[in-house]
Structures are given as C-alpha cells and as structure tokens.
C-alpha cells in the first residue's frame, strides 16, 4: 500500500491534466451567461440574452427539431433491426458468422470523413441528398454497428438455459423470443438505444456532406455558425446539448439500475 501512495507532485500534475481535459467543456457554462456581444472570457457582465437569442433563432430551432426527430427515428430503427440480427449472430451457428459480424461492424473503423464522402457520391445518384430518408439511412450505417455490438455482448452473457427452459415448457421459438429473450435483454436494449441516440444526435461529419439549405441538423448548424462567427450563442446551445446528453445518460443509469434490481 505504501508504495502506491501517490506523491503530491504527481497529484498536482494529474489535477492540471484533468483541468486541461475538461477546460473546454467547463468553460462554455460561464460563457453562455455572458452579456458581451463577442466571445470573451471572463465576460464583462452576466445575462441570459444568448439563451433568449438562441430560442429566437428559427434556424437553430428547426435544426434542433430535425435532429431530435432524426435521432429518434434512427434509434428506433437501429433497435428494431439490430435485435433480430444480434439474435441470429449469437443463437444460430453457421459458417462465416465471425466474418459477417466483422463486416457488419466494419463501418466503425472507417474514418467518418471518408465514409461521408463515399456516401455522398452514392446518394447523389440515388437522389437522397438533403432528405430525411438519406440522413436516416446514413446514420443507420454508423449506429447499427454500435447497436449490434452491444446487443450481441448482452445476448452472449445472458443465461441461455432460460430459453431452453421455456422451450421445454412448451413455448414455440417466437414465444421464447418475445417472452423470455427480449425481456431479459431490456438493459442491453436501453444501453444500445441511448448510444445510438447520442451518436445520431451528435453526428456531424457525415451529416455535413448530406445536408443542405433545405434540411440541416443542430450539430451542422452549430458548425456552420462557429465557422462564420464566434459569439456566445453557441455556448448557450452547447450547455443545452451537454444537459441533454447528461439527461440521456441518467435515463440509462436509472433504467439499468432499475432493471438490475429486477434482473438477477
């Protein structure tokens, strides 16, 4: 124990490094309450004017509702598609299963800038640019690998004798799936859904390639805004985004915590 006692210089170093790591996220909170016209820290006086400005910015508001709708659709579709796929991947044995699993999760390995361009070129000929359908499809390419991976791990660690027990008790395969497998999978589904929602809601690089004046998401609008000017408006939006993320994480913690009391 003695040896592992961290020395004071080391503690101070770690503290400074943590400060560096968290500085940009922490700083947007005070800046969002700035009363200044331009980005300045510390602000000369405090106000909530930038929150007011944010809620009067129709572009940002419509981008926000687009993002919310997009992330919701993507999350639901991801779960609906990934749960059966993960079930096949963990419950049916067939040749080339590992290969297929790697192929299905491969989009995660590709840099988003490359994937974005690749999808842009293909979608252009399909007429999917700047459409909700196109955005949903492109986001699914990125969220499905996450969902598949989380759900496959959850299904693999789940006690499979429960499914066997249900079968010996007379349940047909479909009944086993809906009355035993899925209810036991709820924590995994919640985790996968939360991650899909956050990934879709925060996705910016691929979305940049596929959005236009007709349709845009909140991260893309924020990107465009920062690219053109630097004022505290984005700080206000950032604070709300961070709070939203925290909210999703807390829902997961609650549900997972709750389900943990029910399961096992």
């Amino acid at each position, binding site marked *: 124990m003695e040896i592992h006692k961290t020395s004071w210089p080391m503690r101070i170093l770690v503290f400074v490094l943590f400060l560096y790591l968290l500085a940009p996220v922490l700083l947007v909170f005070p800046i969002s309450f700035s009363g200044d016209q331009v980005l300045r820290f510390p602000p000369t006086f405090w106000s909530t004017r930038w929150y007011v400005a944010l809620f009067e910015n129709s572009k940002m508001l419509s981008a926000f509702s687009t993002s919310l709708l997009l992330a919701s659709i993507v999350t639901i579709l991801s779960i609906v598609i990934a749960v059966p796929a993960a079930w096949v991947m963990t419950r049916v044995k067939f040749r080339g299963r590992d290969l297929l699993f790697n192929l299905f999760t491969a989009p995660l390995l590709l840099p988003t800038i490359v994937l974005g361009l690749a999808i842009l070129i293909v979608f252009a000929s399909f007429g999917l640019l700047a459409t909700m359908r196109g955005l949903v499809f492109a986001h699914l390419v990125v969220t499905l690998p996450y969902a598949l991976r989380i759900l496959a791990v959850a299904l693999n660690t789940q006690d499979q004798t429960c499914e066997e027990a249900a079968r010996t*008790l*007379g349940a047909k395969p479909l009944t086993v799936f809906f009355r035993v497998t899925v209810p*036991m999978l709820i924590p995994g589904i919640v985790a996968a859904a939360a991650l899909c929602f956050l990934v879709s809601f925060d996705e910016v690089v691929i979305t940049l390639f596929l959005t236009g004046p007709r349709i845009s998401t909140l991260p893309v609008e924020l990107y465009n805004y920062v690219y053109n000017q630097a004022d505290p408006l984005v700080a206000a939006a950032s604070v709300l985004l961070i709070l939203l993320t925290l909210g999703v994480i807390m829902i997961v913690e609650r549900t997972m915590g709750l389900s943990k009391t029910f*399961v096992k």
Partner: protein
Amino acid sequence: MPVSQSLEEHLKLDGISISFGPVNVIPSLDLSVRKGEMVAFLGPSGCGKTTTLRMIAGLISPSSGRITVGGRDITRLPIHDRDMGMVFQSYALFPHMDVTRNVQFGLQMRNVSKQDIERRSKEALELVQLGHLAQRKPKELSGGQQQRVALARALVIQPSILLLDEPLSNLDAKLRDEMRLQIRALQQQSGITAVFVTHDQVEALSMCDRVVVMRNGRIEQFGTPTEIYERPATAFVANFVGRTNRLKGKVGSDGQLVAAGQPLRATTKLSPGPVDVLIRPHRIALQPSSGPATTGDGNVVEGKVSSIIFIGDLVQYVVRAGDEEIVVEEATRRERAPLGVGDNVHLRWSADDTLVYPDDGK
C-alpha cells in the same frame, strides 16, 4: 418404498448416438425406463449423461437412433411438443417474472383455462411449500427456494417425464440432504417417471429406483442401487460407486487367485491372467494377530498397521500386507481398545466381498 411400480416400459432409447464434430460422444446407447420409476444417470463429467438427458428433452438431436415415450416416436418432435418437465442445474428461472408467473408459464403455453392456471399453479406452489413467496422475484429467493420453484414449474404441467440435470449441485451440503428427500417424495407422490443426472453416487443410490452408470458415452451397468453397489459389473463401477481397495492379483492356470502375496477365495468365476481385486474397506474386519485365528470360508491376510486416520464416525486403518496397502474402515466405538501403529493384525473378509475383474490396464 416405491408405492406402485409397473413393469410397463415408458421411455426407450434405441441405438442413440451423437457426435460433436469429429468426437463421437455417444457411440450407441440403448436404455429402457419403466413407468413411474426414477432412474439416475451416474458418471464422471464428460461421460455423456447430460448429453443423453438433453437428447431426451430435445435440446439436441441424436445423429442416429430412436427415442420413444409410451411407444410414440419423439426423436424428431420439436422440444415444445415433447411434454417434458426439466429442472436445470442453474434452475433457469425467468428473472423478469415472479414465482407465480414462472410456474404458470408452461400452463399458458398449453392453453389451459385461466381458472385452471390459477388453481394448478397455486397447488404446485403449495406442494413445494412456497405458497407464501408467490409474489417474489427469483433473485429474492434462496438457492433452495429457487430449486423448489424450478421443480414446481416442471411438475405443474404434468409432464410425461421429469428430467433433472444435476439439480442439487448448487446447494450446500445440508440443504442437499433435505432436497434429496423432498424430490424423491414428490416424484413418488405424483408417480411420474423421472430421469436424474448426477455425478454424486450418494444422490444416485439414495434417491433412485435404478441407476445407469456411464463412462465415455457407454453404459457400464444398469441396475438397482444394491446391485450396483454389491455386484458392480466392472472395476470402473466398483471404483466409482463407493470406496474400494484395489489390489493387483493374478489367477493361475489352476484357477487359484493370488493377491497381496497370498491365495484368496472369491465367488466370482475366474479365468487365468492378471486381475484387479477390489475389496470395500468397511467389509474387512480387523483383529489383533494375537487373537484366535479363526478360519472359515473367508479370507485372512496378515499385515501391520502403518497409519491410523480418525475421521469422526469412522476410523481408517492403513495396513501393510505384503507389498500392498489395504485400507480398513471401522465405525468408531468406545468399548473397543484401539489398535496402534505398528500392531500386527489379521484382515478378514468373506469370499463374497472379494470382487475380481480382469486387469483393464489402467
């Protein structure tokens, strides 16, 4: 005592075989279980006992052979149509359902009327004395309680066969003794045919009407507990069930058995060659060699006590006789002056207790 046991054949395995990849786990297995009896599959891990049980349940299908229940071929019948009640080693209770819902699951699958579901699940829970815990979730129950829920869940559907896969192995020793009696009582009350997989000889011998001893996917012996214990068919069975002394011996061309440097008597028919001689430790009587050397139809071997191990109910004497070490077990008694290390003794046992098997080279 079994209440009434017909000789009617109920479950029949006919030349069942299975391979996992290149491994031929069970080459060919024939077995017939009577209606209302409880049969144990006993053997070391990897002997194929659980695999056989899972084939009966339909969780895996045999590569070849036939399984029939009451004359009906079920080999290719899907699991959910087989009408088997199975109790799993891990109990496999549904974690998201309470005790009642767990027990009712099988009835719901059978489209039993709502009233009957309520009544029968209640009865089943009363049967295992868990009526007061009906609303609990499985994780709120102790191991023994979970075990009883699993039992109730399997019995409530009144299956044609009850399958038990090492149901007691996750319980502590004391609870295990209790559950042994309870499971046996439930089985006899309901008169259900049961197959019980275990690696514990005590469970197999004490609970079951007949015992199948398995090794490497083959049946070594199938018989009543007494037969298995008193007349083990092979050296493996003798060694696996109960404790034994194993002596290297030889049968001469004249048919005379020699072991521990002495001629011995046995009631088994002997053919010349190297043999294993097995004697159960508690079937050997130990006397100081100063005492009267009574002869009879039994065997008497001289030896010297080399160590004494006190185990509580038992005392184990390790006796050196010739170039063999023989273990003798005696119940501890107060009145008898204990022997000491270094004492010369006579070992005495009857010819019936001398089990002789051809040397299998192991």
